[in-house]
């Protein structure tokens, strides 16, 4: 049971970072970014490469993964989404993000091949070695306190950035009404670029924790997309606070359901069923998601329609 709770909490921590990142892309460019999972894998391979080369634990390379993921996401914004932002519709942007996903995913495959050749390590279906911590008579995997601390620190920093700094006020303003922000001298392009950097950086940070729990390959990011979209939808599309809440709800429900399925002898391959059901039920019953319950108050950023 303890292992189940640990698994659920770690998984939810990752989802929270992924979901907040995805929400940032959604509320700035209104793009349902299908390449978001690849930013997580950029973080994985950045940390893996550096840890193999320098011989330190991947935890030590979280800041580097944050920077790499942010940089890739920033480039995606500047080269792909910014030129298209005002020129095309939402469906086209979504299709473009799917194309970007393929480009990034197969680039990661190429990188994995090169890394395997150069560094003589497995670059597909690998896991990171973790440390154990003693707590209340139990031995817990280090990824639990590490991911919890990192998620808490990053979300708190993001909150401070958005609500206590001038840059944050400019970000919130540009998200709510880009035209007016531009009219007041705010460079919306720069503000959105920062949002995209953070979006990729958060996903990449989440990625570093993944191989501590499951075996990963360049395609793992794709499989993380469904629960991430579910967290964003259940939490309320475009709401950062809602995305965090949605992530913990989806993370815990999915983990517990998979456990229950295994208990009654049903394949855990049906695990995504719950995630799909959560998306469909939310869209049918209460499309505003959990954030609809407190919309307009607290940590809720929305763009004017």
């Amino acid at each position, binding site marked *: 049971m303890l292992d189940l709770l640990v698994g659920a909490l770690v998984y939810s921590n990752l989802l929270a970072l992924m979901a907040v990142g995805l929400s940032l892309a959604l509320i700035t460019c209104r793009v349902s970014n299908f390449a978001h999972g690849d930013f997580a894998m950029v973080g994985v391979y950045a940390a893996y490469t550096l840890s193999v080369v320098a011989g330190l634990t991947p935890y030590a390379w979280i800041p580097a993964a944050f920077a790499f993921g942010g940089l890739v996401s920033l480039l995606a914004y500047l080269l792909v989404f910014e030129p298209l932002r005002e020129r095309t519709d939402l469906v086209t942007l979504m299709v473009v993000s799917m194309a970007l996903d393929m480009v990034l995913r197969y680039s990661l495959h190429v990188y994995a091949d090169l890394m395997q050749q150069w560094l003589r390590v497995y670059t597909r279906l690998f896991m990171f070695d973790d440390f154990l911590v003693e707590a209340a008579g139990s031995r817990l995997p280090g990824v639990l306190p590490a991911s919890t601390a990192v998620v808490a620190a990053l979300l708190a920093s993001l909150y401070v950035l958005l609500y206590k700094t001038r840059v944050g006020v*400019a970000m*919130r303003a540009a998200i*709510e009404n880009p035209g007016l922000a531009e*009219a*007041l*001298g705010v460079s919306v392009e720069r503000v959105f670029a920062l949002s995209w950097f953070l979006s990729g950086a958060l996903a990449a940070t989440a990625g570093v924790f993944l191989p501590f729990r499951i075996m990963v390959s360049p395609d793992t990011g794709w499989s993380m997309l469904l629960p991430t979209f579910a967290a964003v939808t259940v939490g309320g599309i475009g709401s950062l606070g809602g995305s965090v809440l949605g992530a913990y709800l989806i993370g815990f429900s999915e983990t517990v359901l998979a456990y229950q399925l295994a208990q009654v002898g049903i394949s855990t391959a049906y695990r995504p069923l719950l995630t799909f059901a959560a998306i469909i039920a939310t869209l049918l019953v209460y499309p505003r998601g959990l954030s609809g319950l407190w919309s307009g108050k607290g940590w809720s950023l929305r763009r004017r329609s």
Partner: protein
Amino acid sequence: MRVLEVKGLRAGYGQMEIVSNVTFDVGDREVVAVVGPNGSGKSTLLKAVFGLCRVFSGAVLFKGEDVTRLPPHKRSRLGMAYLPQTGNVFESLTVRENLMLAAHDLGEEEVGKRLEGVLSLFPELGGLMRRKVRTLSGGERQIVALSMSLLRNPSLVMLDEPTAALAPRLVKQALKRVVELRDEAGVSIVLVEQNALSALEVSDKALLMVSGTVKFWGSSRELLEDRELAKTYLGL
């Protein structure tokens, strides 16, 4: 030197031309009213002058500098301010945050100085600082919007129907405020207004637009005295 010169401007959205061959200018501390029937392209003209819609041909000169191809945030930094008819404040932010945003590229000392100036023009703002804009009345929101523009110390303020959200009894008062603004803040003003009579009474010059073209350009008094134009297009 003229503060604003618009020469043969043709503008619109996508491939659709809404404003055709519009020429006018605004002098220092001058109030120019842009009037005309609904759908005549008044708001599109302001957007085109500020760079918010597509310009097909023509030129926009601000203090002699060609700004036709500059993005809006750069025009804003040069001293142009534009207040849209709707969505002219950030509803999810507090009044203070709205004002801080308008002054986001200034040093703290400068912000304090300019804020003092704005508060002397609109003392009622003082008590609203911590309130979210979404909780304010239409009139209070207009004051916040106007204050945001003034904080940027503009030479030119373009107002798109500033009285639209106000009760009829407040319209004259609001437009009188616009003239006070010209006198006290020393700015030039382009005023798009549906309430033609009130706008013409407070402005120096008038631009009458019909179907995207200029039907009259001259002194406001002249337009008021032209019974035919005033009756046909302004219902006066």
